[in-house]
């Protein structure tokens, strides 16, 4: 596993993000996932929200109009910076 980028102090894995929180993706630890997510529209630096999370299961993130479900294994490899705990009616 790569070491965390030291430019950002408060990074958490997507696994730990609460439902409704908005965040910026800062680091993705797996090259293949990084390229696949780039095509979905998500890159390091993109802003998204945690749309839904299942107990022990996948996290669904929403990025603009697009919803993507990520299995538990993947969520451990995605590091984000939370910018708002609650989504205050963004749209």
């Amino acid at each position, binding site marked *: 596993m790569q070491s965390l980028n030291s430019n950002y102090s408060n990074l958490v894995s997507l696994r730990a993000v609460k439902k409704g929180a908005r965040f910026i993706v800062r680091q993705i630890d797996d090259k293949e996932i990084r390229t696949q997510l780039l*095509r979905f529209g998500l890159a390091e630096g993109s802003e998204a929200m945690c749309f839904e999370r299942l107990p022990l299961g996948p996290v669904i993130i929403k990025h603009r109009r697009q919803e993507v479900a990520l299995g538990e294994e993947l969520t451990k490899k995605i590091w984000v910076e939370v910018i708002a705990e609650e989504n205050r009616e963004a749209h």
Partner: protein
Amino acid sequence: METLTIDTTLHATTVEKTGKKKLVLVGNPNVGKSLFFNHFSGLYVDVSNFPGTTVEITEGNYKNFRVVDTPGIYGVSSFNDEERVARDEVLSADIVLNVIDATNLERDLFLTLQLIDMQFPMVIALNMMDALEEAGMEIDVERLSEILGVPIVKVTAIKKHGFDELDKALEKATIGNTDKTLLHALEPILAKMKPTANPIADALMILEGDETVAERHAIPPEDKREEIYVARRNRVNEIVAEVMREKSKMKFGAVLSEKLGKWTINPISGIPILILALWLIYEVVGVMVAQRVVGHTEVELGNKLFEPFVKHLFATITPVEISVDVLNGEDVIETKSFAFPEGTSRDKAKFEEFKAFIEGKDVMQNFAFSQETLWGKIVTVFAGEFGAFTMTVTYLAFLLLPLVIGFYMFLAILEDCGYLPRLATMVDRLFTGIGLNGRAVIPIILGFGCVTMATVTTRLLQTSREKTIAASILNFAIPCSAQLAVITALLTKAGGVYTLAFFLIILSCLIAIGTIVDKLLPGKSSALLIDLPPMRLPRASNVLKKTWIKTKSFMQEATPWFFIGALLISVMQVTGLLEGWVKLFEPITTHWLHLPAESARAFVMGMVRRDFGAAGLYELNLTPQQIVVSLTVITLFVPCIASLMVLIKERGVKEAMTIWAGSWFFAFGVGGAVAFII
């Protein structure tokens, strides 16, 4: 990779030969691409499996174009089978029609920019303009067309709006505004490449690190993928920021769609929704189609009409004894035998008597062809109990076909309304424990319909490892609809506690199989990464077309295997091998499983058709304990002969035979253990 090189050079001449240009439809999954294809080609399409893969390609003709539909992809590359197939179709295109979901511009433009960078003459169809309006968004289409440098047509495919404009625009397909820095980087690669249909496109693939394309040109692939992707992503974001803006609040339809999507994923509401969906499938496919329609078609058309017709043809010159059961509803009210020691044509008087006897009655005719001569044996192989011309045809046309249509129609509806990926998400956690991810829910559910069909569907899983695990679970532990009716009936006899015991036994076997195969196979299964399209009403034309295409291709693929399977079993029957097998298993059945000797026959017959096995048990007088044991064995027992054949085709002889042979040991092993405990 010699053959592939030949492929691309061959292509250059197709235009000259047929005079038709190849128009390739490209787009992300769920952008409504198939509606465009329907518009161009109508119902008359060719479905073919791409060589070496199991991905379907549909082709049709339109005006001066050969129209090719490709699987939905997020980019041209080689991450999975779908992408590899789409990649080769795109690379040999003369014109590209890129279909974009207007509500998902940010995702879809990534592929668009890649296609533009490949310098294809292209047209963009901006689909789902109505949904864009619902979502309260607006796109400056003129500006977008100016930035990209290609014609864009606004379309609402579902309402058939914009197709006339699209037809006209195809004449004006243009090469768009390619990324200039990329073109510069492509030069050294272009200099080294072999001649090909679209040199720039191939060169870009090589620059993006595509190994297959690089190999075709005997050039080492570059490793610029991530760099190029990041730059492309940034350009997409800039473009979207410029052309897209929020006009109003989301309208009711869009809000409802989002809410509904959320409800299907959250287990609290999602599980009831799943139960509702399964109940609907059960009522429609299980009760209506399987019991009513198939009950009628199989018995009335197959057993009573078609099979006697074929058998009588053979009976004219073959020694045979025909025993006639006269029916009144379900009951046999009279039985009479007619012997024709030299065939029905030699004994006119008796045959007339036979005809007079069955005249106007509801009868079931049972033919016993004499097997004393080689000819008799051959007739039995083709027209006997398991005959290739009799049982197989009845089975395929009157039993399997209605079921397959029913299942594929539901699958198409669930797929089209956006439910399947959400279901996969909700159940993902249940599958990660057994080395699969949520996507596997589709083949597993289908397995309760027809394991053969479900085995074909394991193709949608991403890695070979996952396909093996899913195929093992299906062929070891999932009872198909052919057995379910008899299993349910027998469990009703056995009672509640025993029913629960049976479910627990099968469930733990299913988990055990998944876990063991997961542990045995090297590597790791892929985690779920799935895009959730908006929930929407399924479109009838789309559902019908998908059902038709899938049914057709399944029947085409499975039919030869059903015939081969029937031939094998019939040969085993006439050579006495089948009987020998039954004898071999009798001691195990009586001593180890504590079941009556006759159940050995039921088990062995299960090799042919799983319902034969289950039905055989129904006729025996079993105690509740024996019911649980025998049902356990028959559920875990080998897949039917058709499943085995398809399994061989999908997963290879070695894997298929391991599963098949393993089923014998597993079924009798677990069955014995259960017999010992209860």
